[in-house]
């Protein structure tokens, strides 16, 4: 028995068109991975405005596409789109299903709750816990497996580890034991390769990316997994992008830190034990993955306020564009300081010179590019102060160095944004497990 896992989403805001190709290819599960560390912070800002938000708001769009397949019994749908408010996401999923005509079909939608540790943050002595905006643990696959076993065809979670969204259906289908470390590790490898959508099918590929077939239609990936954990990473036929040894290995090591000990809530996976075999025609086989006993603790993230930021951008033309941009940003800083605005940190970048690369960039003698964009960002403790330096940008138009342009419709300055610190912590599994719950709604 081969189980096909399709990736439907790799981040909040990902494409929708490739989802149809994955569904049409025939997958047993469509898995939408919606959360990154930064996403939780974005969702927190939503929830601060409106307590009924805090989940990724494109969830209904993905559901709309998946529901016909779910209602026909051809596929199940798993997502962590619940973000920091899975209960609200579960409600939105229920409403979307009813709107799609699922009322009275007996469709079961499960919501996994319990990753939220905000109420316990003070007791856990987390950094800045008394003002935590969110505090969540990364759950593993178990509650999803529980939901699938209870007959749920749609499973909505909060902060479940990305790869665990994919291991859960494999554990459910193949009956893998929770101490079968090699199988669980194989599942994590498959999940890790699928969870970033187009990043394994030619997206962000550092090789000859310009040779991607049909690059405007880069596909989302599919994993074909066997009961022993061997698997093939592939993509729907007739789509763009490519699956090769090279695209797969770039994703294999993505964000894993120590590849011999990739920590997941259910297992520690050794990705250095994995054999990758390119079978051609966009099929790469994985085998031999080894695993070790799961970590004693769960990882969590706690988010706390970290001040306010503003920024401005000014672009100057040749000649001496870099010198002009540097002088202009210097004026903005000097005038802000002269006005007594307390700025805690400044950050300068010069695009066209070394804006991203900083000290890694070699700048040739006499380098005089056609234009240089200077970007100045600053941090203050309060919102009003963060708005202040951008006002000086307009002054540069008539009273700065010659040849400023390209300020754009925003006039060169941005509205202040709140900065958030997101810090990792470890927590005893029992504390989290005791509050995890699977709620099932039936249509």
């Amino acid at each position: 028995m081969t189980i096909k896992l399709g990736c439907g989403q790799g981040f909040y805001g990902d494409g929708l068109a490739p989802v149809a190709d994955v569904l049409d290819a025939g997958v047993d599960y469509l898995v939408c991975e919606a959360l990154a560390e930064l996403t939780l912070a974005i969702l927190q800002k939503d929830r601060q405005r409106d307590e009924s938000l805090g989940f990724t708001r494109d969830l209904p769009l993905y559901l709309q596409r998946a529901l016909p397949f779910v209602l026909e019994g051809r596929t199940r749908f798993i997502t962590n789109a619940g973000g920091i408010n899975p209960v609200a996401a579960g409600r939105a999923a229920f409403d979307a299903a009813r709107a799609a005509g699922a009322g009275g079909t007996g469709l079961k939608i499960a919501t996994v709750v319990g990753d939220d540790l905000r109420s316990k943050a003070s007791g856990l002595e987390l950094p800045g816990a008394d003002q935590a905006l969110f505090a969540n643990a990364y759950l593993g696959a178990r509650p999803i497996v529980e939901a699938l076993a209870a007959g749920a065809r749609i499973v909505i979670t909060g902060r479940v580890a990305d790869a665990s969204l994919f291991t859960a259906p494999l554990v459910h289908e193949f009956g893998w034991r929770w101490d079968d470390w090699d199988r669980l590790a194989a599942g994590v490898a498959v999940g890790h390769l699928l969870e970033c959508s187009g990043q394994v099918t030619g997206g962000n590929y550092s090789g000859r990316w310009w040779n991607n077939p049909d690059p405007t239609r880069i596909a989302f990936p599919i994993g074909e997994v066997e009961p022993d954990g061997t698997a093939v990473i592939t993509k729907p036929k007739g789509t763009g992008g490519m699956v090769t040894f090279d695209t797969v290995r770039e994703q294999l090591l993505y964000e894993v830190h120590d590849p011999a000990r990739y920590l997941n809530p259910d297992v520690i996976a050794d990705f250095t034990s994995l054999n990758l075999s390119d079978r051609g025609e966009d099929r790469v086989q994985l085998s031999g993955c080894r695993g070790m006993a799961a970590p004693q603790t769960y990882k969590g993230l706690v988010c706390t306020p970290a001040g306010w930021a503003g920024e401005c951008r000014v672009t100057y033309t040749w000649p001496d564009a870099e010198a002009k941009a540097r002088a202009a940003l210097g004026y903005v800083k000097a005038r802000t300081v002269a006005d007594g605005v307390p700025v805690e940190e400044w950050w300068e970048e010069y695009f066209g010179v070394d804006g991203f690369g900083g000290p890694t960039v070699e700048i040739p003698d006499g380098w005089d590019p056609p234009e240089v964009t200077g970007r100045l960002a600053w941090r203050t403790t309060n919102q009003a102060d963060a708005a202040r330096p951008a006002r000086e940008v307009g002054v540069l138009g008539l009273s700065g160095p010659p040849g400023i342009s390209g300020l754009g419709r925003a006039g060169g300055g941005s509205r202040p944004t709140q900065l958030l610190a997101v810090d990792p912590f470890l927590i005893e599994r029992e504390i989290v497990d005791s509050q995890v719950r699977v709620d099932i709604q039936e249509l």
Partner: protein
Amino acid sequence: MTRIRLVDLCGARCGDKGDISDISLFADDAPSYAAIKVAVTPEVVKTHFGSLVRGPVERYEAPNVLGLKFVLHEALGGGGPRSLRSDNLGKTHAAALLRLWVEVPDDVAVGAARRRRAPVERSRR
């Protein structure tokens, strides 16, 4: 030995976790892999990134995919939602590492497979 830029020798991908930048290099064959293991030490990477990276640099090996992994601490100005940098997630750090000049055996430099650059299509001016 020949001096060569990593961009001509390796593929690379980067990502982030908190204030950590996580960069992988990928060699195309065993001799290239051996060469970058010698040339691209954590110390070299730390020096290359200079003031962009305030913490230590760790290195890991994944020989099954000819991969060399670098974990750069305190590398993103405080982490994605806290950083003042336009590249708050370090999405350009793989390219920044590929700028590095290294000394490799002559045959490795001659066999380097990544010298081709993307074609640029400009409309007539």
